[in-house]
């Protein structure tokens, strides 16, 4: 299973202990958070890395990234900061059978 991580307002945020999320109407993005004693409706909207969750009327931006997206984002940040070589990690272990780039190629 993909290792997704969430950031809310720029801060890494974990799931709350004891709460679960279940869909009420997936086609509309309506879900329910419950901890067995209490529950509340949520609205979940988004795609890819950018999500918005409406909780108690407040619409909160949530960034969800996979391990691969986090690695690429960190690499991009390092490149912007250092302006030098970037280490690119493979998302899965395996054997490299070809390298499609060579020294001097432009990377955008």
């Amino acid at each position, binding site marked *: 299973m*993909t290792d*997704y991580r*969430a*950031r*809310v*307002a720029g*801060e890494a*945020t*974990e*799931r*709350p202990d004891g*709460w*679960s*999320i279940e*869909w009420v109407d*997936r*086609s*509309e*993005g*309506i*879900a329910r*958070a419950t901890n067995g004693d209490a529950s*509340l*409706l*949520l*609205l*979940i*909207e*988004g*795609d*890819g*890395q950018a*999500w*918005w*969750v*409406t*909780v*108690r*009327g*407040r*619409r*909160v931006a*949530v*960034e*969800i990234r996979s391990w691969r997206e986090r690695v690429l984002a960190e690499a991009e940040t390092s490149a912007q900061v250092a302006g030098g070589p970037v280490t690119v990690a493979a998302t899965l272990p395996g054997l490299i059978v070809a390298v499609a780039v060579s020294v001097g190629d432009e990377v955008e």
Partner: protein
Amino acid sequence: MRTDSNGPPFDRILIANRGEIAVRVIRACRELGISPIAVHSDADADSVHARAADRSERIGPAAAAESYLSIEAVVDAALRSGAAAVHPGYGFLSENPAFARAVESAGLTFIGPPPSTLEALGNKLAARRAAESAGVPIVPGTTVALGDDTSSVDAVGFPVMLKAAAGGGGRGMRRVDAVEDLRDAMAGARREAEAAFGDGTIYVERVVQPARHVEVQLLGDRHGALAILGERDCSIQRRHQKLVEESPSPAVTPEVRAALFESARRVAETVEFHNAATVEFLLDAAGRHYFLEMNTRLQVEHGVTELVSGLDLVAWQIRVAAGEALPASVLEPSFRGHAIEVRIYAEDPYAGFRPTAGRIGAWRMPEGPGVRVDTATEAWTELRTEYDPLLAKLMVHATDRPSAVARLRRALDETLVGGLQTDAGFLRWLTDSPPFLTGAYDTGFIDEHWGRGPELSELDRSLSAAAGLEGRRSQGARRGWAEAPDLTSAWGSAARRDALRS
């Protein structure tokens, strides 16, 4: 106008407005057996209100100045449609005496007070003078236009509020705390008033603080009868515009209520009055009331009065416009329980209630006992920035105030609006706020207690994270068997619904 006492008051009415108030009037028309005719700008051709009517007349391009504010276009539409009367709703041309005259000159009935009344009370300075002459207390200040000589402002005493004589809706208003800020504030208020109303006349009132904003609903017939239909408390405001209204007011004692009603009656008696109007007052901490203005139209918050009185104010506007006399059940209604209205606006309460724009996503309004929603908003539609950002009015009614607040809290928990930030988070917070729970709030409530809102709680932050993770995980799972469209797309939503049906 009515010719057969058993038939509808009019055969056909044109509603010179849009959005939720147009839908509200359309519903009243249908219940009275009247054919409702809508008007629409190009931007509203496929809107809810245009579709709700029997037919809709195009009145111009999206810009309100060339459509909903065009007297000629609206009167032409009324004549084209064969309407016998025009209901102006609120805002737009509803308090414009030239419009009321144009409607009547075209041989149609204007569903509202007479044009002379709109004229007399539309000018806030003239209204202040009329109220004062009727023995009604007014907010200390000037009763003549403020000129370059500012000695009258010194006499009033700071802080003061500069106000536009032709004003309303908070435009042309400036609070001034010290004499050195007066000149700039006067220039700004005049500019804004000139731009908004075509009249830069301003006057000055002393700031009454703390104060409650309490208003009295009036309904008069053409035979001289006047019904006083209780008060509404509208003290929770941002930028001098109301967000929450309730009836009865938690701040009004029976003695204060009697004094407010008497003052409202006196103000109405200064003019020839029939149909619906509201007299607005400030109430200070000692329970003294001061006349603010009289709005000669239906108010946005009229539903609160309807819930506690059991009366259909829009229907009665139409019936008295047709000449019907108010019966005893309206002149002396029995009030029941407590009602609260909250306005759901496309505004970001975490950014100073700044307007938000975009496409409405999911749209789920509450239901159940004692809940009423007046709206013309639909899911997956673009929000029009040309018009008012009001998305819905959510009203609740219960046996007493604590029960009404509990019902409002429940209703807001069921409310989900996607696509953009709304003020629903503020409203939900309000229902747990101690000053609101006890009814001990005033017009400074939002500045004092909300500001830019509380930080997101740890629980809500982590629930948001969990929900976002579930959204993405679920999207990925579905993409295992098919490329699922994104959850923000209207086409995507339709496709998902189709897929669920098949």
